[in-house]
């Protein structure tokens, strides 16, 4: 079924709580993806428990690979190369995926391509619409908040990032303060649409840099709830969610739109789990329409961790001859730059 010129990358992703395997053709066509999410399990513990996540990965990954190959109606012989997330992420979880990938690479004598998790998130956009360069990428997730300038494929220049908490982490912490269950980030987004922007929260790190800081606004929400409790005032959770979300959207859009102007870039992509946030998506759509910027945001299913993005990024890494040996190391704090 495969044309000789076509490149099929098998992607493997296990950096957090999703065991995922995907086959992507030529970096843009998703042939098949299988995902086993552990979210329901971790919900019982109020957050991802690394050791439990590692245990679930090891039990399930052969089933997930088999499901992916069956869906694609392909065998390992049809695969050109194997791409795997080597970091950043939970080390015990990464180790499972890395050992599976190196073993497959050894058995089938296929090239092994290491993929950085965040680069994977960025390349999820290629599955939606071909990335046009130069571009600015805003990466927003539970572990990252970065503004990145890309001159071409696989050329990354960080122009700003968070100095403390990641934006998704901040969402989850605020969710806990207003009694929303794990994973709370998406619930804050949902709740905010029924609230009003009535609470005076600060605009976080409103300066001339492209950096972000979210620990201040997180503390502001905690203090606000604490003080209102002390005074015996009713706490309007929906209004807190709305006020908080508006401030986050304002600072993200303000710095990103400024970067587009300063770097004279007409393409913006948004990547990472928080790109599923409806408030953020809508505001960026509105601003980009007004400014004539081409905006690409992954479909909701590609916003969270998945192997399709790893396989998509793996194609470009493969073309750039990025390779790993059988001694590939998982790196919990892998640096992208």
């Amino acid at each position, binding site marked *: 079924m495969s044309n000789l010129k076509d490149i099929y990358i098998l992607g493997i992703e296990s950096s957090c709580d999703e065991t995922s395997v995907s086959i992507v053709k030529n970096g843009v066509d998703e042939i098949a993806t299988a995902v086993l999410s552990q979210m329901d399990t971790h919900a*019982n513990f109020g957050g991802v428990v690394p050791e439990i996540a590692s245990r679930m990965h*090891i*039990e399930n*990954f*052969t089933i997930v690979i088999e499901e992916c190959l069956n869906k694609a109606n392909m065998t390992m012989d049809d695969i050109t190369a194997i791409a795997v997330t080597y970091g950043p992420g939970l080390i015990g979880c990464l180790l499972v995926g890395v050992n599976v990938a190196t*073993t497959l690479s050894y*058995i089938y004598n296929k090239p092994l391509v290491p993929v950085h998790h965040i680069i994977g998130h960025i390349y999820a956009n290629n599955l939606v619409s071909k990335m046009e360069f130069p571009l600015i990428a805003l990466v927003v997730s539970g572990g990252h908040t970065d503004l990145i300038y890309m001159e071409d494929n696989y050329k990354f220049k960080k122009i700003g990032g968070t100095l403390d908490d990641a934006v998704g982490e901040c969402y989850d912490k605020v969710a806990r303060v207003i009694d929303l269950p794990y994973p709370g980030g998406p619930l804050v987004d949902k709740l905010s649409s029924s609230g009003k922007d009535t609470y005076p929260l600060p605009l976080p790190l409103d300066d001339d840099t492209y950096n972000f800081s979210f620990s201040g606004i997180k503390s502001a929400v905690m203090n606000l709830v604490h003080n209102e409790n002390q005074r015996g005032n009713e706490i309007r959770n929906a209004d807190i969610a709305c006020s908080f979300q508006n401030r986050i959207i304002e600072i993200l859009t303000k710095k990103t739109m400024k970067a587009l102007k300063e770097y004279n870039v007409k393409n913006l992509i948004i990547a990472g789990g928080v790109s599923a946030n409806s408030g953020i998506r809508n505001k960026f759509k509105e601003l980009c329409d007004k400014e004539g910027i081409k905006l690409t945001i992954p479909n909701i299913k590609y916003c969270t961790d998945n192997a399709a993005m790893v396989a998509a990024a793996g194609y470009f890494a493969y073309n750039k001859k990025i390779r790993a040996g*059988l001694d590939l190391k998982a790196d919990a704090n892998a640096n992208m730059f």
Partner: protein
Amino acid sequence: MKYLLIDTTTSHVVISIVEHNEILVKYEDDIMSDMSSKILPIIKDCFDKVNFTIKDLDKIFVVNGPGSFTGIRIGVAIAKTLAWSLKKDIIPISKLELMATTNTDKNYLVPMIDARRDNVFAGIYDNNLNSIKSDSLININELLDELDDNYELLSFDLLDIKNLKKPKLDILKIILKHQNDKPLNPHALKPNYLKLTQAEENIKKENND
């Protein structure tokens, strides 16, 4: 019959290829760091020394615990991937039973792995690898109280115990014992941690209170 044995459950690592009840290659050494990135290169080196490839294997024996949780998963990830993709039989082995292959004059062997805070993973075996007391996580003093001179105490770890002996693994002995075990479907092969995660322990405790 061509066999591969993989044991990465503790820092004392064993990789061996066995054919016709003869050890063709054996790697046995302590790996104190970066185990994950070292195992597959070692396996490749082992196969480079024999005149067949990994695809010619008949069975894979994998030591699936107890030991370090991460170490267990490295070996199990490799073995499961091999067995699943090459459609080979896979047979799980206990690390404690492997340690109990040590030769001794005594009637019983007590292999132990340090599990910290005065706990050990331990079992009791006779000289024919029959299990007398099944593998478990146990307080070391509680375990030693039951034992007399008929028991050979074994560990690779520096446990503070008198008459502790370092195990000397007999790979052929364990393979002969298990080569006719019913093989598992690779999907069903699980690590044998002998211990819940801390988060699960906490929930269990809450439910019992």
